[in-house]
């Protein structure tokens, strides 16, 4: 089913939501205008000393009214957002596969993100939402938007300064893996730091404090892109067969930034760094032109296709 067909099936819902959207966008615009005017009054009061008191009072009152309207607009927006996700995204998911469900308030739990070992850095600030769950054959999978950051603190002349750095902003895909394994195998992008780390861990293994060893795999394409570590050399090769390495390379070719993959607790986790927030309703753009869903649908289809791409539903290795 194409985006346009989905949009036409959802026409009635969209017409209803379009009324809601206009209401939200109107309220938001009104609040911005009033807050802007309030600021102008306050600034004018400061600039012209004689009008200070009048500027402060009128500006203050205007600002309060602006913020009240803004808070009402935010409430309206959250209602509109809820309806959009439930009815529009929900229907779009069903059009791809009936098993797909969106749970927009939950995401990948922080504990799972850490235990996936996709990244070595532990997050200090973590947010995950818009979890989509479903299954293809026997393979249960889910994907969620994740924003994980860590904090560094520097001492400056003006005191302590906190800096936030992104570990991942994007989507984490998680699926039940089709082979039995006990250890942990991680596949990370081979950037400069990872390449140096791999070299040290290979040459001076005594310096490596990790429980995982570097795994030297045969595929030159794969090794050019990724560095692999595992708690078990044989198990890593049982999971990363030549076919699996080829498939992961193909999957990686389709994305802008290099993916990270981990195999642990009988699951495969794949992190896709992405800059956009998906499954969010438009506020200042009409719902009726049908094109707003294109990117969301593209992401859903892409995630759904991973099971097929990685052949995760082939259950011939003693795990059903």
């Amino acid at each position, binding site marked *: 089913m194409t985006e346009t067909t989905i949009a036409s099936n959802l026409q009635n819902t969209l017409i209803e939501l379009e009324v809601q959207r206009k209401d939200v966008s109107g309220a938001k615009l009104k609040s911005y205008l009033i807050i802007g005017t309030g600021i102008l009054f306050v600034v004018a009061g400061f600039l012209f000393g004689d009008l200070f008191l009048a500027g402060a009072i009128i500006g203050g009152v205007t600002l309060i009214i602006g913020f009240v309207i803004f808070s009402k607009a935010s409430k309206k927006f959250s209602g509109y957002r809820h309806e959009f996700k439930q009815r529009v995204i929900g229907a779009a998911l069903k059009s791809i596969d009936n098993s797909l469900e969106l749970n927009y308030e939950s995401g990948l739990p922080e504990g799972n993100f850490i235990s996936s070992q996709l990244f070595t850095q532990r997050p200090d600030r973590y947010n995950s939402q818009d979890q989509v769950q479903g299954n293809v054959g026997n393979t249960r999978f889910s994907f969620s938007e994740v924003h994980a950051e860590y904090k560094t603190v520097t001492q400056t002349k003006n005191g302590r300064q906190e800096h936030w750095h992104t570990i991942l902003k994007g989507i984490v895909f998680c699926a039940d893996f089709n082979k039995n394994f006990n250890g942990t195998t991680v596949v990370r992008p081979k950037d400069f730091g990872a390449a140096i780390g791999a070299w040290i861990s290979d040459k*001076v293994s005594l310096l490596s404090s990790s429980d995982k060893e570097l795994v030297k795999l*045969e595929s030159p394409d794969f090794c050019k892109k990724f560095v692999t570590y595992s708690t078990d050399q044989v198990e890593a*090769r*049982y999971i990363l067969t030549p076919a699996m390495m080829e498939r992961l390379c193909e999957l990686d070719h389709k994305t802008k930034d290099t993916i990270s993959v981990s195999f642990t607790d009988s699951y495969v986790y794949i992190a896709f760094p992405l800059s956009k927030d998906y499954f969010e309703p438009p506020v200042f753009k009409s719902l009726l032109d049908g094109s707003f869903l294109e990117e969301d649908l593209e992401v859903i289809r892409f995630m759904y296709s991973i099971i097929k791409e990685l052949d995760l539903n082939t259950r*011939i*290795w*003693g795990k059903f």
Partner: protein
Amino acid sequence: MIIAAIVLIAILLFGITFYNSLIGKKNQVTNAFSAIDVMLKKRFDLIPNLVETVKQYMLHESATLTKIVELRSQAGNASLSTEQKIDLDKQISTGVKSLMLSVESYPDLKANQNFINLQSTWTESEEQIAATRRTYNASVTDYNNAIMMFPGSLFAGMLNYSQITVLASTEEERQNISAKSLFNS
């Protein structure tokens, strides 16, 4: 004087580290080799069960079954080297493959749950053996590189270490999911 001592200590430390790492690599090769042995044993242990399950159904394949049982009993010989076991495994695999291909003619067997489980365990063990062989080859390459490159070549001479040949890749390793074809038969 102090500088000379520091340089000497550094050279000594470097030498010890390199010597230890060479021994570590050699041990890794031995470990990887024994992992192949363990996996082969696991695979050979599947044969009696497999034969027991299929023999009641596959009345016309008795020659193949006898051959597999015979090879399995040879594999039980404790004096066999891992290379000989690998060779036996190749012959057993060929026999089992031909059995699996003829499953199509025995619909009752094809639907037997025990047989389905055995079939997937067999496939699993096939990939596990391929993984141990690949691990062995990776350890051998690592070891060979270490003893052939300077300064490893100096220590290799002293330790009497020589190059080891990697195992030739099997059909399963070259063809990506050959096991799948068994299920499509």
